[in-house]
């Protein structure tokens, strides 16, 4: 596998010396016949250092992935940059979000020519819109969008409007925190249920032919009685969309805590996203048991606390990237927002109609809805209202409790 003449495939770049090739000739021997050249260790160290660079870039590289990577390098022709590139991408990446990071790291590490940016078709998939922040790593939120020529004005608008700062939960007064914690600890929300596909043994229900037969076998061919089965119930998915824009800031902490309480009840059936100038998924952070840690991590993941709102666009990003794929399908979707929409409301109405068609039920929670004299006349909420099953208030313990009852019955 040391021949350099198979360097480029028909659709890759022409064979040319790259920094990796120099490294490669050493690796072949290091990995191959167990040769003991003095710099073998250096070569291996170098490759492992590349995986470390990747890890720093946000790709979750684990030792077993590194081992697989080295195993893959043994199989391919290391003189070919294309093959080296793919061996790493196939073994070290595990998510489309990783690919842009891998591309960047690979070119920084292996390319001898700094102008060399992309090779062949090996470009990362473009995110559908620039409104999506890199999930869970706000410090790298620009990655993968820099070369996205389709939506430059969107990006400029986004970075101009949003306040990319971390929200510190410690800023709350002690009394408020104590109060929130106690009030939320009291909640034991029951998740909505749906009928599952699987059936389970039951006292009443349809006859279960298989279990009847098995019982018959146990009784040497005599039928001891009719076994029955009924459909099981499983928690129905709940999707929480939290508006974290400036106008919702006083409620954001409480709502995230509420999301955490719901998530802890049925971790697999609750998905939480925050809406601001970007869409951020905080489900993973909220699955942690300790509420303070979960909230701290979630706060760190959200790059656009108290920024502007572009509800329509962000909702569209949610539906494109998650909702339509399955997250919103037959789920109970709860939108926590005051419906302040900066731009036109046409897009919001259109996206809410889409959401309505996908979801089992759509609940809109508006903290202002509970206030005296409130009328849903703001542009955003007026456009969304025709597509909402319930409009609820969410500004106090009583109203949040009401929400849990609505959820349980949905």
């Amino acid at each position, binding site marked *: 596998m040391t021949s350099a003449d198979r360097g480029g495939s028909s659709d890759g770049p022409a064979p040319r010396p790259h920094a990796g090739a120099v490294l490669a000739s050493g690796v072949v021997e290091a990995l191959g016949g167990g040769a003991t050249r003095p710099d073998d260790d250096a070569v291996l160290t170098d490759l492992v250092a590349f995986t470390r660079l990747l890890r720093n870039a946000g790709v979750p590289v684990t030792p077993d992935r590194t081992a697989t990577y080295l195993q*893959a390098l043994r199989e391919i022709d290391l003189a070919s940059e294309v093959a080296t590139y793919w061996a790493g991408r196939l073994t070290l990446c*595990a998510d489309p979000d990783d690919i842009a990071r891998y591309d960047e790291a690979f070119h920084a590490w292996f390319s001898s020519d700094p102008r060399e940016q992309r090779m062949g*078709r090996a470009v990362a*998939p473009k995110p559908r819109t620039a409104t999506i922040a890199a999930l869970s790593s706000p410090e790298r939120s620009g990655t993968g969008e820099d070369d996205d020529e389709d939506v430059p004005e969107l990006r400029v608008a986004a970075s101009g409007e949003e306040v990319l700062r971390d929200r510190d939960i410690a800023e709350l007064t002690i009394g408020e925190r104590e109060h929130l914690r106690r009030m939320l600890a009291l909640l034991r929300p029951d998740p909505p249920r749906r009928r599952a596909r699987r059936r389970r043994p039951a006292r009443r229900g349809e006859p279960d032919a298989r279990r009847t037969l098995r019982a018959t076998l146990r009784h040497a061919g005599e039928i001891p009685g009719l076994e029955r089965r009924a459909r099981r119930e499983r928690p129905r998915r709940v999707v929480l969309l939290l508006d974290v824009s400036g106008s919702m800031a006083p409620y954001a902490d409480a709502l995230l805590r509420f999301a955490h309480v719901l998530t802890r009840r049925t971790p697999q059936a609750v998905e939480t996203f925050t809406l601001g100038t970007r869409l951020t998924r905080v489900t993973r952070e909220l699955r942690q048991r300790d509420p303070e840690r979960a909230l701290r991590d979630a706060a760190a993941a959200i790059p656009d606390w108290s920024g502007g709102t572009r509800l329509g666009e962000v909702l569209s990003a949610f539906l*494109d990237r998650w909702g339509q794929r399955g997250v919103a399908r037959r789920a109970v979707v709860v939108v926590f927002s005051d419906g302040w929409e900066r731009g036109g409301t046409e897009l919001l109405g259109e996206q809410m109609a889409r959401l309505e068609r996908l979801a089992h039920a759509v609940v809109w929670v508006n903290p202002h809805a509970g206030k005296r004299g409130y009328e849903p006349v703001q542009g955003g909420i007026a456009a969304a209202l025709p597509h909402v099953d319930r409009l609820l208030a969410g500004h106090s313990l009583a109203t949040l409790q009401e929400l849990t009852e609505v959820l349980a019955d949905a």
Partner: protein
Amino acid sequence: MTAASDLAGPDDVSAALGRTGYLADSGLASAAFLALRMGRPLFCEGEPGTGKTALAQALADVLGAPLIRLQCHEGIDAAQALYDWDFPRQLLHLRTVEAAASASGTALDADATEASLYDRRFLLARPVLQALQTTPSVLLVDEVDRADDEFEAFLLEVLAENSVTIPEVGVVKAETPPLVVLTSNRTREVHDALKRRCLYLWLDHPDLVREVAILKSRMPQLSTELAEQVAQAVHRLRGLDLLKPPGVAETLDWAAALELIGARHLDLESATATLGAVLKYREDADRARDALDALLAS
């Protein structure tokens, strides 16, 4: 048909796949090559219609191996993926043995009867067991994201061991592990432990040149002009920010529809008539119709 050991590098895999009518780029060829060499499952993710399932079929064709498909769905369990006992037949067998014994007046040997009940002929091999018993074979675990996460854990165990334990029969181990292709549409995140065992391949829509080549190879009777026009139009459709951007399958459908109505070129009339083959949402069709002139401009 090619043995896996004959494929010396990604280029050979690419050529072999090309002979079956599946045009692979360098990434795909590297992935298939490494999956064969390292004996690792290939985990394919990507938009619907980018040829994930077709890849498994093409690999099966290259290896001359049967493609065994396990379609995942919510609530799938081991009995549907691994094996099941054929209870009705076992029961019939039991009755027959009983009847024969009472007719001849001999006593029934309980142990022998029980052993005969768990005979291999009453074992229904489901896809995973079939794949382990067939050498060589390609096992396609389609849309694994639709299955429950408990099923993932179970799948992980089978993929790690390449064997299945049936209490009444013993361990069934694959002589040569099957080539496993898993696909996912990302409706939910598949557990990291499963991904870690696999090679990860993200499939994107093909570029223009490749898509024309795919059209020509799948539909040799299609005129080059029409193929280029269709591929071009589909490419522009993908840039329109649609709810469901058309995949390769839709491109092929569209070309077939155009051919059936006897269109020689893709013009306003023929495109409007056949738009339903490529766009499946009313909103998308409306948006495309407004932009149809620009889409068809050469």
